[in-house]
């Protein structure tokens, strides 16, 4: 037993605990906190100290090394670096990157070359927005200034190879043709990109070369044409999933519209048929069913410009491909149309299929009113011009319209009935479920209008009529139950009233008896 003591003592001895991190700042950093401005006030205050204390120990040590190496030159420089209150990860990158350290030092750089949280206020270059820069998808993956500008972030001085990678300033602003190839150095290299984002495509440049923008820029040397930075920006590039990104689905209409909705900028550009390229697409899109879904309802599944035109390979879809573009989402309507009589007629006339009836950028939410054989109606006006002697078509249009109207009216009539029954305490859930089926059938029936054939249409309408019949049966059953309850109540009221009358008579009899007893007692 005695022999166990050393072992117990050994087990009882705790492993040396790591020293607690008390947020202490390196001595050289502490010295900067003592620096004062010309008014005698400390340059670095409690805010900066509190932020510094929150940084991990190794980052604080990194700041200390920078101060010792004079890459952080003084209190004002440190204040500029701590000002945006970056995340600890961003801070660790920044304090080990000499490019950024130098371009944040107000003592050694001209204002125009300084990173700033508010470039306008500090008269800095607007591309040097510090907050945007640290949010950039490249920066967050470790690609900093040197990645594009050249040089090395570890070196203390700028070397000539930095300037060598870029065209001269006046040239690179006038001629933008160098940009796609420059970005493609990495983005067209699958083995390089695999190391960062294996799922990101690397065919952007090849697609771009075939796009209208690419043809204009690379073949016709038109530097007004959009290239990478036109849509993605320069510093502050974010992935398409970021709400702040210029290529987020909800931002794309504005990004494209930046040029395409500007008549001055687009002046001179023409369509294939020689007519001027319109600039009302953005306005039309905003009013369209797609635009409202995307921009107002926030439905990210709704199409933006790139959904129909492509992004890097952006081109206006040809007449032959418009219907295929629409079919990527509206596949069922496309299938119905393919089997319809209209298919051949449209091909014969070389009409774009969907666009002919629904329009393009300003596609309104289709209503049953579109199906009209009136002379100014959608069907009527076209048929009057192209298929005059075909009364069967007009009858079919009227049949579609009236069948849909019957289904819709039935739904509108039955829903308030269900609501009224629900307030009466009846179980309306099966009725609501049946009404949902009816709604689904109406959607299907509307889609089947694209068969332009009674037989095809009736497959949907029949299901709708069955749903109406089912709902009506459920409503009638509920009404029957309601009558049963009412009759039950009336019978109960009758029985209880009868019992109450009997009890009332008994009470009267008892009262009379008590009065008689009282009188009898008083009478001598």
């Amino acid at each position, binding site marked *: 037993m005695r022999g166990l003591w050393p072992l117990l003592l050994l087990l009882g001895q705790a492993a040396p605990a790591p020293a607690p991190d008390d947020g202490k700042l390196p001595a050289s950093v502490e010295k900067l906190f003592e620096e004062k401005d010309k008014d005698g006030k400390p340059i670095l205050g409690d805010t900066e100290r509190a932020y510094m204390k929150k940084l991990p120990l190794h980052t604080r040590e990194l700041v200390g090394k920078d101060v010792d190496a004079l890459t952080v030159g003084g209190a004002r420089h440190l204040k500029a670096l701590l000002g945006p209150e970056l995340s600890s990860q961003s801070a660790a990158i920044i304090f080990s990157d000499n490019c950024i350290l130098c371009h944040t030092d107000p003592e050694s750089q001209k204002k125009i070359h300084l990173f700033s949280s508010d470039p306008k206020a500090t008269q800095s270059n607007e591309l040097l927005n510090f907050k945007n820069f640290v949010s950039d998808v490249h920066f967050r993956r470790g690609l900093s200034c040197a990645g594009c500008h050249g040089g090395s972030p570890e070196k203390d001085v700028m070397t000539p190879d930095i300037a060598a990678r870029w065209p001269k300033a006046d040239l690179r602003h006038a001629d933008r043709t160098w940009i796609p190839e420059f970005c493609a150095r990495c983005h067209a290299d699958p083995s390089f990109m695999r190391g960062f984002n294996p799922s990101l495509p690397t065919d952007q440049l090849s697609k771009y070369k075939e796009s209208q923008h690419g043809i204009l820029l690379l073949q016709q040397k038109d530097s007004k044409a959009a290239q990478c930075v036109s849509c993605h920006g320069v510093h502050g590039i974010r992935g398409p999933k970021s709400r702040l990104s210029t290529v987020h689905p909800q931002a794309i209409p504005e990004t494209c519209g930046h040029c395409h909705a500007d008549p001055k900028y687009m002046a001179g550009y023409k369509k294939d048929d020689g007519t001027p390229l319109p600039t009302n697409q953005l306005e039309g899109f905003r009013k369209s069913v797609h635009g409202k879904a995307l921009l107002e309802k926030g439905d990210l599944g709704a199409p933006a410009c790139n959904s129909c035109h492509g992004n890097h390979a952006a081109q206006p879809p040809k007449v032959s491909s418009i219907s295929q573009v629409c079919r990527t989402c509206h596949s069922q309507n496309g299938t119905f149309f393919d089997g319809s009589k209209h298919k051949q007629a449209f091909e014969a006339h070389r009409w774009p299929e969907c666009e002919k009836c629904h329009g393009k950028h300003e596609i309104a939410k289709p209503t049953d009113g579109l199906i009209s054989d009136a002379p100014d109606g959608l069907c009527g006006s076209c048929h009057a011009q192209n298929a005059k002697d075909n009364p069967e078509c007009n009858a079919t249009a009227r049949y579609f319209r009236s069948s849909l109207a019957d289904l819709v009216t039935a739904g509108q009539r039955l829903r308030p009935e269900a609501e009224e029954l629900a307030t*009466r305490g009846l179980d309306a859930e099966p009725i609501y479920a049946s009404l949902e089926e009816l709604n689904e059938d109406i959607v299907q029936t509307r889609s089947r209008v694209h068969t332009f054939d009674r037989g095809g249409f009736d497959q949907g309408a029949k299901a709708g009529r069955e749903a109406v019949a089912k709902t009506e049966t459920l409503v009638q059953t509920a009404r029957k139950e309601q009558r049963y309850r009412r009759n039950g109540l009336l019978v109960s009221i009758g029985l*209880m009233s009868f019992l109450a009358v009997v009890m009332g008579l008994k009470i009267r009899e008892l009262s009379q008896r008590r009065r008689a007893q009282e009188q009898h007692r008083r009478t001598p």
Partner: protein
Amino acid sequence: MIETERREAPPSVGERLYRWLDARFRLGRLVEFVRHKEVPVGGHSMVWYYLGGTTLFFFIVQIASGVLLLMYYQPGEATSYESIRYIIARVPFGWLIRSIHCWSAHLMIISLVVHMFSTMILKAYRKPRELTWLTGFGLFGIALGFGFSGYLLPWNELSFFATAVGTDSVKSLPVIGQWLLEVMRGGPDVTINTLYRFFALHIVILPLLIVAVMGAHLLFIQVQGMAPAMRHQRPDRPGLRFFPDFLVRDLLLWLVCLLLLCVLVYLLPYGPGIPGMEWELGKKANPLAPAYPGIKPEWYFLWVYQLLKEFPAHLGPMEGPQAALLLVTVLMAIWALVPFLDRRASRGQSSPMFTDLAVAALIFMAYLTLKAWDIGGGGTATKLPDPRATAWTCAWIVLGVSSAVDLVRFLVYRQRWLAFSGAALLHVALNGVFGVNYLVAGAIAMLVAIAGVVLTSRKNPAAGLEAPK
């Protein structure tokens, strides 16, 4: 000859059964007690004597309908809501039983509150019935407990959030607040554990408790009889025989209550739609969903809910809700101890001060309840009600009705003790009409009430306060 034949006729089955039981349990004493039991007549309306009975009737309905619901209700995260849905939609007459249970619960509380206030105003609590009042007060508390615990059981959105808000107020209690909150909820948040607790409370703990307290309450009434009117009001008339005269009347009223219940259940199966008095199942509770505005507890808790809202976040050294709950506790303690405070009534003397106290309590609670209902606030589904407009409208309603009541008391019943109700009306007027802060208005009203008490007692020592010896 005939007499002899009668005497020799064999006793009926009923008679033989009675004799058999009487030989064992001495039923004769009970029969003799019932035969001589009387209900006092005169002095005031007989109506007030029936209210305890109607409360008992609704309680019996609660037990019966509750047991039927229990045959199908399954507590659990995946079953509570679903089983209630099943009861409403599939179980034959399930909708009827649930609706009866809900309606009867509210009618029971209404009947109980009226019974309590009538007892207060008629001074039926006076010596020797102090314990009857105390057990009645206990029954009131248990009934509220039934309401609170039963509310959560359907596990729908409304009940979930109302329980979350209701239990949260407990947190403000000093020292034990957080502990009590976790005991009530079965954890820091309202979860299915809370439902299990409330279920156990609703169907086991509270029923056992209420049977015991109600047993005592009824026993006291049987032993002491119903309280007669005060001596100065009482005419010299013989009482009404309890059996069968009073009992038949009582049963007739029960029948009318049943009839009322049936009509209400058919016409308004989910309640009248007043906040705190509706039980449409709606959506299933989702603890992750955000609470929507306008969640309110049941109507009988609304005055406390509104009082909590009237208090600021901090009041001196205390938190606002803490101070509000302290005030409620003090008021409740005063209410419970009324039989011991009202010395005049205990000697059989008129005690208008406590009559006025009851009226003041009604004014106090009515104003808060109306405000909690946002009456006149112009709130809609998208717009929050305007508290100032609410206070204005509610104040005028309360001032109109209560002034009329006080006027009738003054002119018809010749009551001169109006200090408390007057102060309560002043409180309402200051807050609702003139926009004075609720607590400031309350403090002013309290000072006025104290001054009123002092002045009235100086002017007429026999009017309300203890007469100087």
